[in-house]
């Protein structure tokens, strides 16, 4: 898998024909939902245009920035090869909201508010949501207003007519940083699309009484491969919505292929050798295992350590910073304090630390790893 990613990384997708491109994307995206498309692609080289409406709620634009960093495929390739039309995206589109004396003016070529309404009216689009959705104050949603309407209202309208909904980034999936515990978090009442933290009943769709399946792609930010490969799989029909979702998503709505239930960042961490030998850094700037600096990689279900980031050049632990489990539904509260080792917290992500340690080490792990955990735990 690792070698395969490296090999594919060195390919220039722009020079490939569509068939080879799709094959490469499929292999890279791995087994579960891109694995079986090969024969179909051979016979279906043309894709109908797929429209994407990308909405921004309470967010930092980090996930949009991230998608521009995509490499496998990159965003331009995805648009041209998969015939994706990013029809609405506040950071990229030419339009803006235009009002004269309170009434929308001009046409959808210049006015984004007219554009988004027309697109929703036309239907047949994939809705991507970046950022959490304000429910406060008092369920009004007025802590986030765009173009004379609350984001909650715009989201409800767009969600109702969407063919598929993707929540991108930990804010849209679980509320993320916007839902972090604070003196005002009850008042602001930010929600994820289908969940708020681990709670599906608090998701904005449930609040609105809209029943639509959602694919969650968490991460702070979400990795561009996770987003683009999932979008690609949906467009290719490799993910049938809703019938396939139960098997390909985990209990928090994440594609298991990227967020494996039985695999954590820890298992392929570049510093894993130090862990197995029980060698730990206790100050920053070293090269050993970061467990004692608070690393949450053993509790973080993502393929970061295999896939790595930004053209596979690095990742958090490689750069000497503990994993903060930003793909988990409880982030950031479940990972705080970031620099205190998880054992000292006693309980993490709602589970007992001892169970988690065993799960983290896993059945296939070398004996030395088990020893290292025992050593840390003082057994």
């Amino acid at each position, binding site marked *: 898998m690792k070698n395969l990613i490296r090999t594919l990384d060195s390919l220039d997708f722009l020079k490939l024909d569509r068939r080879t491109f799709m094959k490469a994307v499929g292999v890279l995206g791995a087994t579960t939902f891109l694995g079986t498309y090969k024969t179909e692609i051979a016979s279906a080289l043309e894709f109908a245009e797929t429209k994407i409406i990308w909405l921004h709620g309470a967010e930092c634009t980090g996930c*949009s920035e991230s998608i521009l960093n995509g490499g496998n495929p990159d965003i331009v390739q995805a648009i041209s090869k998969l015939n994706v039309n990013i029809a609405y995206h506040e950071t990229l589109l030419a339009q803006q909201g235009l009002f004269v004396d309170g009434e929308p003016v001009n046409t959808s070529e*210049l006015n984004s508010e007219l554009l988004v309404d027309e697109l929703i009216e036309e239907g047949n689009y994939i809705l991507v949501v970046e950022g959490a959705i304000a429910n406060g104050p008092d369920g009004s949603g007025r802590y986030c207003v765009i173009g004379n309407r609350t984001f909650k209202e715009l989201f409800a309208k767009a969600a109702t007519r969407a063919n598929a909904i993707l929540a991108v980034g930990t804010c849209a999936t679980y509320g993320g940083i916007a839902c972090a515990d604070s003196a005002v978090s009850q008042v602001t009442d930010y929600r994820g699309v289908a969940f708020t933290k681990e709670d599906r009943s608090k998701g904005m769709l449930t609040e609105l009484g809209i029943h639509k399946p959602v694919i969650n792609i968490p991460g702070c930010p979400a990795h561009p491969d996770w987003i683009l490969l999932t979008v690609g799989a949906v467009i290719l029909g490799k993910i049938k919505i809703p019938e396939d979702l139960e098997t390909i998503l985990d209990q928090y709505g994440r594609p298991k292929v990227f967020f494996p239930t039985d695999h954590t960042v820890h298992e392929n961490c570049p510093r894993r050798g130090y862990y197995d030998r029980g060698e730990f850094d206790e100050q920053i700037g070293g090269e050993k295992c970061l467990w004692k600096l608070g690393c949450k990689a053993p509790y973080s279900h993502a393929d970061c350590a295999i896939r790595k980031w930004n053209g596979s050049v690095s990742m*958090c632990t490689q750069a000497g910073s503990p994993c903060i489990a930003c793909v988990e539904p409880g982030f950031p509260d479940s990972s705080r304090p970031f620099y205190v080792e998880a054992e000292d917290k006693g309980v993490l992500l709602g589970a007992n630390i001892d169970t988690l340690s065993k799960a983290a080490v896993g059945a296939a792990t070398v004996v030395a790893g088990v020893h290292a955990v025992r050593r840390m735990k003082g057994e």
Partner: protein
Amino acid sequence: MVNVTVDPLTRIEGHLRLSTEVNAEGVITDAQSSCLMFRGFERILQNQDPRDAALLVQRICGVCPTSHSLTAANALDQLFGVADTIPKDALVARNINQALNFIASHATHIYILWGPDLANPAYRDVLTPLGETGNAVWKEMVGRFAPISYKIDGQSVPVGSSYLAAIPEKKRLQEAIAVIGGKMPHQVTSYPGGYTYKPNVADIGKLSSYYLQVMDFVSNYTLKVPFETWIENTYNASSPQKAVSFVVEHLKGLVEKSVASNDFSREAGWGDAEFYAAFGSELVGETLLGLPASLKHDKIGGYSDPSKIAFLSYGGFYKPENGDGYDPNSPAGDRFLTSGVVTGSLEYQNFDASKITESVAHAFYDDTADLHPSKGETNPFTDPEAIRFDQGSESRYTWNKAPRYDGTPCEVGPLARMLAAKEPLVTGLALAFNEKGYSAANVYTRMMARIQETAIIANELLKWVTVDYDPNGKIAVDTDLSMAKNSEGMGLWEAPRGALGHWVSTDSNSKVITYQPVVPSTWNLSPRDGAGVPGPLEQALIGAKINAVDNALDINYTNPVNILHIGRSYDPCVSCAVHTIDLTGKNAPRTLRIV
């Protein structure tokens, strides 16, 4: 009077509304800048481990996360009492990370966020009737800067060549940051005491390679004159006048070659920077170069009253030649881009952090604060009906507060930094505009300052990577949480968008009592203060003509392209701008006063 409102102003970070009153001549007579979202960000740090700040606070903004996390690291350096001992190589590593983020952020703004407005059909309508030159100029503008999914009159417009080429460069720069920062956005290496990762020789090689590739883009698209020649004759010019003369002479040469053929292509020597430098300005393009037309961006986005505006820089990038440690107060001359305050009439003054205040008179916060920070309290409105954005200048109309320096609204960002640093080209342009009766600050100088700053930082980056950084040096000093007991810290830094400050205080358990960022867009997008003085962007809108090229055609309220130019020229970041502060703690930062 007609109300013309842009909501949302897209191609920025976050959600911003610009509401203007426009008279029958198409001139803006009143304006409000409204930030439309409230997150309550820094409240999440209260009672928490202060070390989490660098990773948490950068999540305010995915475009400039490095700036927030480094500002947090600065505040924490002081909080932990280690600012004067941070190893030189950690400071250089921070510089490299920040410089790459500056270049990526500026390039994104220039090409992805701001550039597409040059392909607005309003320019076609003004330029094409001017004959072959106008046609040629329009062809370049739409051919270089058109965004994705763009249509004019129902016809799909191909993506602009510069726009398209900039996307992989942005990706490359993010990759370069990831090499020494783990990943982007939200790099992970800022920490009190130094830097979590020690870049090795291979990393230095990679960074150099990334640098060369980015410079290929610059020479192919942005700047056709050799980069070294440009730096030598502008940034290193012996006077502001000489820097301006060099640019004008260089452009004159291009005009002479192109005027007969009407060929303004890159192949004819017109890089994007040269193209905009000549055609963006009436003074430069028409008066000095004799061009038949310009976009007249020097006539919009200026300030009419120099006494109501200043330009502020906190100072950014450590000076490696100062060795280990740095001064958290950022005194004049202590940073590569120095701190300073330049008045509306372009006089330099030393910066003093104690002169910063914030007003909530026009923002949606309870007005219970008095003059003493130790007793001040700020809370968001919780009545949905009270959150209204359409009630005019006398009302409360934004989530953004109104920061003031010594009572004066301040523009922050590349223009302010270049003026504070007395950069020859930008200073020369500002002086020239002043002398000819234009506002020294305008959309044109704001964009030229951003372009020039990108060049200067790229130039310095190479030195930091290849000369100043020692892969065998020390990368951090040891810290322990107990060092942060009953302490205070101030982080003064520069983000791509301007002056960024974080203030933190802790209790006897080293837990955070208060954490307060005052960020660039809070300054630029500020509403009116208690005295009714509008913020910088509001001042820049008032008095501007709304339509392209000085309202060259009939007034069109439905395509107010100049409002878009002015708003976007500040590179607004709304998720950064809006935050609430809580100064209830007894150790609240003394430097801040709520009025």
